[in-house]
């Protein structure tokens, strides 16, 4: 039992800093295994070094994000594990 493994919902905070649309309900398809689901249903590893959202089916890293706040604020966002993201405006 891995205490560092959280639900994808936990990545909503850091991802919400760069995505204007609600990200936890975005649909995502894994490049590695083809599984599709909502970001919230995947697994998240959230820490001060960075956040990784990984595929609940195959553990492949879907989304990786790093934020630098000291000096110029910068983000690095890696979406290589994602075939596409479907983001929707909520009514």
């Amino acid at each position: 039992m891995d205490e560092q493994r959280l639900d994808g919902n936990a990545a909503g905070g850091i991802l919400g800093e760069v995505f204007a649309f609600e990200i936890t309900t975005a649909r995502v398809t894994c490049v590695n295994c083809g599984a599709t689901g909502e970001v919230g249903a995947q697994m998240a590893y959230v820490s001060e070094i960075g956040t990784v959202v990984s595929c609940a089916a195959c553990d492949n890293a879907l989304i990786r994000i790093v934020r630098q706040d000291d000096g110029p604020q910068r983000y690095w966002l890696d979406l290589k594990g994602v075939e596409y993201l479907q983001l929707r405006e909520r009514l």
Partner: protein
Amino acid sequence: MNVWDTHLDPDFGGVPEWMYSRRSTTTGGIGMGRGFISRGFRGRRRRAEGDERVPPGQYLVDGFPVLSAGPTPHTPLAEWSFAIEGEVDEPRTWSWEEFRALPSEKFTRDIHCVTKWSKLGTTWEGVPVDLLLEGVDTTAEYVVAFSDGGYTTNLPLEEVTGSKAWIAHTYEGEPLTPEHGGPARLLVPHLYLWKSAKWVRGLRLITEDEPGFWESLGYHNQGDPWREQRYWGD
């Protein structure tokens, strides 16, 4: 995008002109001028002003924080191996029994995480990387340490030789726990701790540098805490 392409990114080597530079880690305030202070809050971590053992911008911590980028591997020891491979005349591997039969040394070092915590006087036991590389014939100048679960980190070969690095299996007298990288992790204490790959399974010697998991996503290629090399362009 290939990880090698980061070399082509101007940001990888330096901060682009359009981005102003403002280092504030060594002063009291951090971050983007947020300004809000939580009345009466004192963090558990202590500033270590004037302590020469603590690199700039770091705080001392009592516990040993665990930071993860993926599931904690649990490779059975019977399936574990450590490899020296890549640009070498003869690749080598050790099983767990063979690895543990090698001479280990006990050592005490300070460790520094890029997320700003430092821990002084941590005690370890492990096999020097120098020993594992003994007699290896290579023209390679770099290594990639690779781990169970796919984590990688890159270093110049000279940063893991000359008594600077170990494959550590024991922490504070006990077998290294999985959450801290057990059964064995790379330990390179003079660099930020993300270079000390947890769950390490080998070193691949390479002639051209290859940014690893965090190096390809903003973290500095060298990672020297004394020069505060945290991010690209630092």
